[in-house]
């Protein structure tokens, strides 16, 4: 049985020092595209947290089955199919049972299928050899870390577009990358507080 301290350590580690957006540089496409205002960013972040945690929880038992049957080279294919299927299913379920929530962030759901971090979390738990609880905690931490990054970035970009007089070439994506770089630098300050593969 995995101890609470190990789970907590993985959670903190994937949220701060090994932040999947600012340290592993994944999930950039939607990060840059949706971070133009804070409301959209919050919606996208929430949707990503939901989908990532859910799909990681589903992919773990599937990967155990693949290992048992000896075909773990097919993990990429099977993961992608389960991700696409769960996103589709989640969209339908939300449309039916939580219509207000669906109108709030339902449009982002199809985009999440190709969000790198959904697949990346699944590939990482394969690499790190996690158990089920560790996978869920890791997925939660990573996706919250991504949501954290996008909300931070959108807050700064929103303000910057109003008060700053940027050169024409820097407006839009270029300045977003500069801001991300500064955020990434700041997050390096969290190094050492937790490890993603704690020694047990």
């Amino acid at each position, binding site marked *: 049985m995995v101890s609470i301290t190990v789970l907590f350590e993985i959670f903190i580690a994937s949220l701060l020092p090994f932040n999947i957006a*600012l*340290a*592993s*540089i*994944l*999930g*950039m*496409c939607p990060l*840059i*595209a949706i971070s133009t205002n804070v409301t959209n960013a919050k919606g996208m972040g929430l949707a990503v947290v939901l989908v990532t945690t859910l799909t990681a929880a589903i992919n773990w038992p599937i990967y155990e089955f693949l290992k048992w049957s000896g075909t773990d*080279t*097919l993990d*990429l*294919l099977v993961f*992608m*199919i389960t991700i*696409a299927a769960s996103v589709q299913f989640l969209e339908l379920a939300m449309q039916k049972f939580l219509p207000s929530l669906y109108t709030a962030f339902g449009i982002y759901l*199809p985009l999440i*299928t*190709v*969000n*790198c971090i*959904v*697949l*990346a979390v699944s*590939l*990482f738990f*394969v*690499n790190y050899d996690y158990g089920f609880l560790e996978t869920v905690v890791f997925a939660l931490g990573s996706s919250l870390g991504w949501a954290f990054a996008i909300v931070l970035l959108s807050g700064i970009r929103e303000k910057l577009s109003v008060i700053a007089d940027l*050169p*024409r*070439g*820097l*407006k*839009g*994506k*270029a*300045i*977003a*990358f*500069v801001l*991300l*770089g*500064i955020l*990434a*630098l700041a997050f*390096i300050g969290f190094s050492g507080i937790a490890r993603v593969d704690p020694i047990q």
Partner: protein
Amino acid sequence: MKKFLIRLNYQKWYNVLRDGIARNNPIVVTVLGICSSLAVANMVENAIAMGIGVTLVTMLSSAFIALIRNLIPSQVRMVTYMVVISTFTIVFEMFLKALTPDIAERLGAYVGLIITNCIVMGRAEAFAVKNPVRYSTIDAFASGMGYTFVLIMMSLIRELLSNGSILNFQFLGENWINWTIFAIAPGGFFIISLFIWGLRVWLKYYEE
């Protein structure tokens, strides 16, 4: 010679090739495919391997999707693209591990992330599903080459500044203190923003 060049402008394959590399250059115009590129583009070797990987996978999957484009039911379009791209990525990963195990070791999980690379999916959705095989292949090749070009440019600067070498061949001497920031995440972000800025000013393509 001049007649040949003028006639070239009317060839469809030439237009497709040119648009893919310059006008529709994914990194600048639509900032696609950055996902996998930034983290591994800190050494030129890795950049070349990733670039070749993305180009190959895009070409093969675009060609295959163009081949079966009339058979795909519209509801399962996305799933189809994913199955095709995943299959080619897995095969590419197998060959990478077999032929160049040290590069495969360095790229690690990022080879698998070619599947979610927006360029591969984007080209399939935007071009391959509506055009015959030969044009789709050329378009995919152009997009892949544009991506590879930007990746190699970035990794050249990053490797030179953070290690003093290019392709593991030391260029800067003993007295060079490594600017290690360019080997890690923030450096990648800064370099690509400068790149986009420079390209935008040069091509006069601004975003308001």
